[in-house]
């Protein structure tokens, strides 16, 4: 009897959150949502997740900042980063800090699901 895998999704766009929740729950994952960097950080630090999906650009704490803090604290959960238009500069930095893969927005749901399955 396997437990459901837990995924934390952090994005300031309601649309993305709705999409992710539906798609991931439909695929059998348990989903927790966060609306901004600070709550993402708090939830991620205190909770037990199998995967974190986080948006690069959010009000308050940037996705990258959150990931950096987690990295400093030694969090081991793999992180998938959602990125917008032109963020190659941060790509290199983020890989050093625990981000395992990137998904560019706009994305395709099957592609997103495939990348998630690769991690967990």
């Amino acid at each position, binding site marked *: 009897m396997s437990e459901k895998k837990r995924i934390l999704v952090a994005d300031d766009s309601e*649309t*993305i959150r*709705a999409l992710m*929740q*539906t*798609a991931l729950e*439909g695929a059998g994952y348990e989903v927790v949502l966060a609306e901004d960097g600070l709550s993402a950080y708090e939830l991620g630090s205190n909770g037990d997740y199998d995967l974190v999906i986080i948006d690069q650009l959010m009000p308050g704490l940037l996705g990258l900042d959150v990931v950096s803090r987690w990295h400093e604290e030694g969090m081991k959960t793999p992180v998938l980063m959602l990125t917008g238009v032109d963020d190659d500069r941060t790509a290199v930095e983020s890989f050093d800090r625990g981000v395992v893969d990137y998904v560019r927005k706009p*994305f395709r*749901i099957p592609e997103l699901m495939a990348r998630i399955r690769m991690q967990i």
Partner: protein
Amino acid sequence: MSLDLFNQVAVLVIFSINAVMLTVLVMLKVVHRHRRLDHDRRRTAYLGVLSRHLSMDDYNEPITETMAEDPAFLDALLDMRNALTGDDASTLGRIVNHHGIIQRQMRYLDSSWLLGRRLQAAVALAELGDEMSAETLMRHLDDPEPEIRIQCGRGLGRIRWTPAIDQIVSRFGTEIPWVSTRFSDTLVGYGAKATWPLLAYIRINHPYETQGVTLALRTLAQINDDQAVGPLLEILEESSDVEVRIATVYALGELGSPEALAALDALLDDDEWALRAKSASALGGLGDPAAISRLLHSMRDSNWWVRRSAAAAIAGLPGGIEALYTALDDEDPFAADAAAEALVDAGELVSARRRAEQEDALAEPLLAHMRSGWS
């Protein structure tokens, strides 16, 4: 009229208007808030419905007529469209087609009185429309509202409606600048299909007008179709307008074809500083290290912008960084400074410091120059 009566009337009038305003304010707040909350609630629900349609193969919760007519549904649809691409986006397209949404938006665009509704319709057609809406979109390229014209251009570009290309290009010279800039972005989306119409436009119009022609040239630069190089070189020779020539040089630089080398090289000595600077940058875009020696010479130009462009161009060429390091010793202090600035911008300073820590000899000249004070 006695003052007293005047006062009384004045006070009455003023306070009545105040009462009206207060009522309006409170009503707006209440009604607005209610409507907005309601709109948001419905939108959230629709996001859920659409998400389920997209992620579950066999999902067939019906989308009702009421839903399809709801502006909140359209909002949800547009937002979802922006977040997705590929097959998911076309699934959304199927939903759209199924429910007469396009037709409804075309009607609104044509005949609604409300600017907000027409604008939403234009955006919806731009994002979701297909060939069915092409004719409506073409018609509204002349809409009185600039934002709607922009959206129509966008829509035509997205469905790759070829007859629109000529229509859009022909408006370059007459449209207001920001609309024509957006039209330019649309044409870039068409890619190589737009090359010849643009070239034709430039050919015909360059002796008479500048604004549209320079925009067309910049559009060609972004489309990046090599076929344009030959005709561009001809235009460079034919035209005597500085702005047109600058834009042509820019385009040649972006296209990066070695055919242009000779022409650009000749322009490094032109009387116009803007043309010299642009040619220097363009030579950088050509990627040919043979240009380095000429560009080093341009770093001694009397005009600061030219020097800077030349140095930046060199930095991007193979072997350019080394050339700039040697230029640090140039007897012309302005050239040396231009070299230093280009090296700093290329990130050399940071790596120089790092290499100095590892005692790498190459780093020294830049650090020494930085420490030596202003020229």
